[in-house]
């Protein structure tokens, strides 16, 4: 299986990338690691007229840390996070998440920004960044803007990016020393996309508690009801587990995240949420 023909250009700067992407009659696409685009091209599901390779752009490879968090350039790959080359401001959550994505050979090429932009509903970075309250810096023909991670993916394979817009960097706020998190990914085989993936971040010092859930059929969601229970909790108990399971079920049903008649899917998502919460509250 070989891709349909396309043109290819290497962008040397962000401006050039934006310019190139605004051409090709709207049929141009950025190329990052190619780890999602590659399969789509080979299956001829994606048939762009032009690919604009972002990898030569030096500024997209930058990582900068400050008191409040870290800014991760769009070309930073999963394995750089996994290996701790990106300063971990999340007490290990980012590293754990990175190491569970696909396989090393894929992580060496695939980028955090590319993953978010691809918006696979079961992708790992969306729920992680949503639970962390991260945001995305976006550049386009109309200039720069910032989008909250929880507002970025609207539907499976769909984001708020306008034609010609590029994700420049991801801004991840620093967790306080007392923050705790939980991360549970259920998949058939390690490295697969998740059947269900929940991330719980509880940071009382910053007065923040967020629970995000991702799965194969619906854009990732925040489960505010569960977050409320986790924020209030003072330890783990079976009763709390039941409460969380119910709250998760309610949130999942309300969002239409899974088919309410599909008892298996409903149960799996709720169970995964409980397990992520348990990790956060048992640490």
């Amino acid at each position, binding site marked *: 299986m070989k891709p349909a023909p396309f043109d290819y250009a290497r962008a040397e700067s962000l401006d050039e990338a934006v310019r190139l992407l605004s051409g090709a009659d709207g049929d141009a696409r950025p*190329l990052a690691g190619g780890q999602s685009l590659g399969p789509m*091209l080979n299956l001829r599901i994606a048939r762009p007229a032009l690919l604009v390779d972002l990898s030569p752009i030096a500024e997209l490879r930058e990582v900068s840390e400050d008191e409040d968090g870290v800014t991760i350039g769009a070309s930073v790959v999963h394995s750089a996070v996994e290996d701790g080359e990106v300063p971990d401001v999340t007490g290990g959550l980012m590293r754990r998440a990175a190491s569970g994505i696909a396989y090393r050979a894929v992580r060496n090429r695939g980028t955090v920004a590319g993953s978010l932009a691809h918006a696979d509903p079961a992708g790992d970075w969306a729920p992680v960044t949503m639970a962390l309250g991260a945001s995305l810096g976006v550049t386009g023909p109309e200039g720069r803007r910032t989008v909250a991670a929880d507002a970025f993916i609207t539907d499976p394979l769909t984001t708020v990016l306008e034609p010609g817009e590029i994700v420049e960097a991801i801004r991840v706020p620093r967790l306080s020393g007392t923050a705790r998190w939980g991360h549970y990914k259920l998949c058939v085989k390690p*490295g697969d996309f998740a059947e269900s993936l929940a991330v719980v971040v509880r940071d009382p010092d910053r007065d923040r508690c967020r629970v995000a859930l991702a799965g194969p059929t619906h854009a990732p969601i925040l489960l505010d009801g569960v977050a409320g229970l986790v924020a209030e909790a003072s330890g783990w108990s079976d009763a709390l587990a039941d409460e969380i399971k119910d709250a998760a079920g309610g949130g999942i049903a309300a969002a239409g995240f899974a088919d309410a008649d599909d008892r298996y899917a409903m149960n799996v998502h709720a169970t995964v949420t409980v397990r992520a919460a348990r990790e956060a509250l048992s640490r």
Partner: protein
Amino acid sequence: MTSTTISVNGRTVTADVEPRLSLADFLREHEGLTGTHTACEHGVCGACTIMLDDRPARSCITLAVAAHGAEVRTVEGYDGDETMATIRESFKKAHAVQCGYCTPGMLATAYDIVTRLPDADRDRIRLELAGNLCRCTGYIGIVDAIEMTLAEIRGGS
């Protein structure tokens, strides 16, 4: 056609290629390096795994034009490499090869495990191998071979 310049097993190659040409097909068809195999062409099976700038990567979903400026090392490119020689010897001893189709990709991943994770135990080896499918061996021989290699390297240093 787009020009791409790639160092292939230490030799610099410049070629004009169709942008849609994968690095795997470039290596196989333009460079005659048919040791790199493809078995899914969407990044899952690992058969096409090669070293790109000293890190394992999928050559089926890397475009030849996107590998411009990179150093590629294929299964044919390990002459004189002692680590790979040890891995190969262990693969033979542990019967880690049957049909041989997955083997070049397995070797690339094994090389990465052995060099990056010197303390890997069997569970970790299995986890790291999750992205390389083998339909013949049932993996146990491959895990044995990598474990043997690690032990040998530990014993030797």
